[in-house]
Structures are given as structure tokens and as C-alpha cells.
């Protein structure tokens, strides 16, 4: 295999597997930037995957055909936001410990999704969907020499959507009044309050958006990768998204980069088994490579990341 072939193998694969992580990590950015820890990303993503699979399946039945996955994305976002509202009520209004509430979200999502699957399909998993997002070359762009083959060929539309959403999130957070306010609430809620910003409302918005995006991440996973929902469809991707968010220093583009980095490391580790030169490395080293690389990158390059200052602390008016 030539070097170009290897790149053409690895880069599209990285982009494909990164998309669900990107969406979910962006959700995490919203929530945590507003000051609410969201360890429940895993659960939200899981419930999004469930919702996605169910919606696509019934969408097919109702003749939505190719539109079914796209409809399911919208539904998964709504359901994800609703599910996240539990976390919001607990941790914002009832001032529950945010980590505890997030852990509860994870348990609840896993239990409820399988319970409902059993109720709906009388089976522990949803049927395999036939309408999926499928890979394609992006017209025109894929014809650009070199770059076209690497970045715009053999890839999912959802992957580009993910990159696009990351840019939007960046714009929203750093260029609009809403973003300024959301971030201020996560840094110094009391200051925001004295400036007339409704701290609770902003945090609710942050958490609901995190639910919507994590739900989208889960649905995209189903529509583009797994094809159905089972008890093991989402096992750890939400935590990887959490890691990507921290790795990316709570910045949307950072999270995007980190998720792509994970995807790349994973693609290298998997395709490495077929790449001359890497082939002879004991398999286990390739298997653990993505995780070791991440740790090395963090220790060597990225270093300290400062969380939003008020992250994890419920806001009470007048408390010092």
C-alpha cells in the first residue's frame, strides 16, 4: 500500500467514527460552559440511539423512506432535550449534586431504553433498519486532487454536518450575546446575576442543548454505523465524548479536534493491522494505541485545561 492509500484508508474512517462523538462532545460543551457538569452524556447518547432506531424503524413503516433518518435526528434531539431536562431540574432547580444526577441519568437511560425496547418490540433489540445514512463522495469537492480523496470521499454527510455544527456552536458561544451570557453563567453566576442575566434560565438552556446534541450523536451512530439499537450499542462512547470535551478544553473546536483525534487514533489502530510495517507490532499494542496516544498527547502537548470556574456549583442567590 502506498502512503496515499493508507491515508485514504485512515482519514475517511476517522471522520466517520468521530461524528457521533463530535455531536455529543459539543452537547457537553454547552452544558459545562453554563456551569453544569454533565457526566450523563453517555445516557443521553444512549437514549438518542434508542430514539433514533425506533423512529427510523417506524418512519420506514410509514413510508418516510430516505427521509426517515433525518426525521429521526430531529426526534432524537427533542427526546434528548426532554431527557436532559430531568438532569436540569435536579441539578439546577433542586440543587442536586450534578455528578450524582448525571450518574442517575446514565442508569435511567440504560434501564428505560431497554425496558421500552422490550415493551415495543418484544425483543431486547430493535429490528435492523434499512434506511440509513450512507457514504458518498461529496460532489466537486471530492475531485480536488489529494485533499478531495482524503477529506471528501467515501464519507457520511453527517460527518460534515458534525463539523459544521461545531463551527456553529463556536460562533454561538463566542460571537453572540447568548454565548457571552452562557459562558458568564458558567464562570461567575453571581456576576451574571447582578448584570440582570437569568442564571437558571441560561443553565437550563445549556443542559437542554446538551441533551439535544447528545441525542443527535446517538441517533447518528445508529443511522450511520450500528443499524439498530441493542443493550450494547452505546457502551462508553458517551464517556469518550466527555473525554473529548475536556481534552478540547471545553471549546467547541477543541472538542471537534479531540473527537477527530480519537477517530484517527482508532482508525490507525484498526487499519494498522493491515498496514505494512505496523503489521508486525503485537496486536494488543495497536488495540491500546488510541488510548495511550491520547494520554501522551495530553501529557505532552495539551497539558492543563481550566474548567469553567463555577462548574459543578449550584447557584444560589446571595450565597457567597
Amino acid at each position, binding site marked *: 500500500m502506498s502512503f496515499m492509500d493508507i491515508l485514504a484508508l485512515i482519514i475517511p474512517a476517522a471522520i466517520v467514527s468521530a461524528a457521533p462523538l463530535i455531536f455529543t462532545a459539543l452537547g457537553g460543551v454547552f452544558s459545562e460552559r453554563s456551569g453544569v457538569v454533565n457526566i450523563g452524556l453517555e445516557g443521553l447518547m444512549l437514549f438518542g440511539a434508542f430514539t433514533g432506531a425506533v423512529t427510523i424503524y417506524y418512519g420506514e413503516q410509514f413510508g418516510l423512506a430516505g427521509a426517515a433518518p433525518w426525521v429521526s435526528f430531529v426526534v432524537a434531539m427533542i427526546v434528548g432535550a426532554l431527557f436532559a431536562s430531568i438532569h436540569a431540574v435536579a441539578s439546577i432547580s433542586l440543587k442536586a449534586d450534578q455528578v450524582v444526577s448525571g450518574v442517575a441519568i446514565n442508569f435511567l437511560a440504560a434501564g428505560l431504553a431497554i425496558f421500552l425496547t422490550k415493551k415495543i418490540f418484544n425483543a431486547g*433489540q430493535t429490528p435492523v433498519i434499512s434506511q440509513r445514512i450512507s457514504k458518498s463522495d461529496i460532489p466537486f469537492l471530492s475531485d480536488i486532487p489529494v485533499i478531495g480523496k482524503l477529506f471528501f470521499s467515501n464519507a457520511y454527510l453527517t460527518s460534515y454536518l458534525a463539523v459544521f455544527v461545531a463551527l456553529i456552536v463556536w460562533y454561538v458561544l463566542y460571537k453572540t450575546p447568548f454565548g457571552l451570557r452562557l459562558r458568564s453563567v458558567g464562570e461567575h453566576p453571581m456576576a451574571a446575576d447582578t448584570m440582570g442575566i437569568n442564571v437558571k434560565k441560561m443553565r437550563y438552556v445549556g443542559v437542554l442543548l446538551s441533551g439535544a446534541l447528545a441525542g443527535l450523536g446517538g441517533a447518528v451512530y445508529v443511522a450511520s454505523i450500528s443499524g439498530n439499537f441493542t443493550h450494547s450499542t452505546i457502551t462508553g462512547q458517551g464517556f469518550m465524548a466527555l473525554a473529548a470535551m475536556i481534552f478540547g478544553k471545553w471549546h467547541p473546536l477543541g472538542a471537534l479536534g479531540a473527537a477527530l483525534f480519537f477517530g484517527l487514533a482508532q482508525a490507525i489502530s*484498526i487499519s494498522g*493491522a493491515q498496514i505494512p510495517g505496523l503489521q508486525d507490532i503485537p496486536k494488543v499494542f495497536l488495540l491500546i494505541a488510541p488510548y495511550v496516544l491520547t494520554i501522551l498527547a495530553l501529557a505532552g502537548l495539551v497539558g492543563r485545561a481550566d474548567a469553567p470556574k463555577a462548574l459543578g456549583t449550584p447557584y444560589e442567590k446571595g450565597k457567597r
Partner: protein
Amino acid sequence: GCGSSDDGKSSGGGEKKDFKVAMVTDTGGVDDKSFNQSAWEGLTKFGKDNSLEESKGYKYLQSTAQSDYKPNLNSLIRQKYDVVFGIGFLMGTDVETVAKQQPDAKLAIVDMVVKGDNVANITFSEHEGSFLVGLVAGMQSKTNKVGFVGGVNSELIKKFENGFKAGVLTANPKAEVMVQYAEDFNKAEKGQQIANTFYQQGADVIYHAAGGTGMGVFTEAKNRKKNGENVWVIGVDRDQHEEGMPENVTLTSMVKRVDQAVYEVSEQAMNGKFPGGKIVEFGLKEDGVGIAPTQENVEEKSLQSVEDFKKKIIAGEVKVPKTDAEFEEFKKSLK
């Protein structure tokens, strides 16, 4: 021969109504589209055929963790089920322990051999079935490159791999077989990436023995088929034709008739012929493994070859390799 040591005391043929059978699934769950589901189908058929009532006369318990196996086995024995099946080799040790502690109980274990006079060991010759689908792959590959995606590298999955490789090479000595294990039965994205790598390198048929990870193999194949590439997947355990639709990427599947095995052992037990302490092997001869009934994508000459070799294997003329060592031997014999 199925003579059993406890012929006398257990339920004879006459007391059909009181006979109860049950099974414990592994963590995959009863509808894993794989051997748990197949086992349950066998048990259900047995129940229906003998007019048993579901969850009284026949039932299953699902395990959500490895540590649930033993409590679940015990629970069924305590409810006086006549035969309790443990599905999957992961349950082997637990079945063995429970059998020792409850000498009066009758247990059966699938995919594993354990000690104990009151345990029936059900195994399959997956390598033989894999050999047949290997023949199909070898003959129908246009590129002379095929792939095998394993779940977790283990003795059991090695049987699939080696049987498959032997079949491919038998049909097509020029063919190259790429092999990779995902080390995970549940990571669709890994399956997809491995398949991507294989297809990208020119493979056009991939056989998976990887559970949920295999779903990713289907995903990748469908994507490529949609874009006009002529690629195939070979399914495993059950007829996975449906998984390949609507793009129709399932070439064929290697089926493993756990249902049949469960049915037969239940029946034997009901008739007082419980094969306790025995190994009951389900191979090609017993119709315990084979290629799937859906054969629309399999060419006539492939089918012919499958039939030929099936006979030869049953007759013992061809010995299909199980392990890496046996495969090396087999390869030499081809030259």
C-alpha cells in the same frame, strides 16, 4: 447412544405434562439474533410441540452480567426444571459448579465441555460449517481476496476462522484471506472500520463471526454496494439474509443450529435418555451446522461444490482444521 446413568429416577416418557425445561442466556440476551435466540427458538418449539405452557413449562432467564449466571442457573433448578441449559461457553464453569452442588439436577452446556455426570455437553463443528461458506467465498470472489472478522480471539472463534480459511483455499488456492479480530463483540464502528480496510484493499467477501461488531461489517458493505461496488458479507450463527437488506449484501450465512441441539437434548431428556456426562457434537452429519436456507446469491457451481464437500466431510474424507496448527497441516496437504 444416549444411555444415561439416571435413567430410572427422572421423568419417564409417560409424564410428559410435568416435564419442564429452561435456559439461561448469556449477557447477549434472548434475542441477540445469534445463538441465545436460536436456543430459545428451539426451546419454544419443543414447548409448543409438547403443549407446554410458556414460563411454566418452558422459560428462559436473562443474564445482565457474568455474575448472574450462577444465581440464574440455581434459580431454575430451585423451581424444579428438569433440564436447565446454559447457553454459551462463558457459563461453563458455573454450570460445572452448580452441577456438582446439585447432583440431582440435570444441566446442559452449549459450546463447552465440562466435568459432571449430570451435564450434557453440546458442541458444534463450527469449522465444518465455516468450511462450506469458505468454499462459497473462494469461488465467488472476483478479486481473490476475502476477509474474516472475528469478535474476540478465542478457541471458539478460531474454529470459524480456520474452517473458513480452509474452505477458501480449497476452492481457490490463489485466494488471500485477511484476518482481523476486533477484540470486542459489541463495537459496530470497529467492525465497520475493519471491513472498510478489507474492502479498500480489494477484498470482496467478508465472513464475520463477531456478533454486534458484525453489524458494522454489514453497514460498510451496504454503503459500498450502494455506491456500486460488488461486495458481500457472509453472516454467522443464523440466516442473516435480512441484515443485508435492502442492498442485499448477504452472500450466505453459516448457521449453527443451537435450536436443533436444544430441542434434541430436551427430547432425549424427556424420554429418559438425558446424555449426562456425554459430549453431544452437532456437526454437518447431524445438521447441526451448515449454510443458510436463503441461497439466492449463491451460484449454482458453488452450491454444487458445497454439496460435494459436505458429503466428503461427513464421510471423513476431508478433515476440516479447527486450530491454527491443524490449519497449517491442512495447507500443506493442499499443495
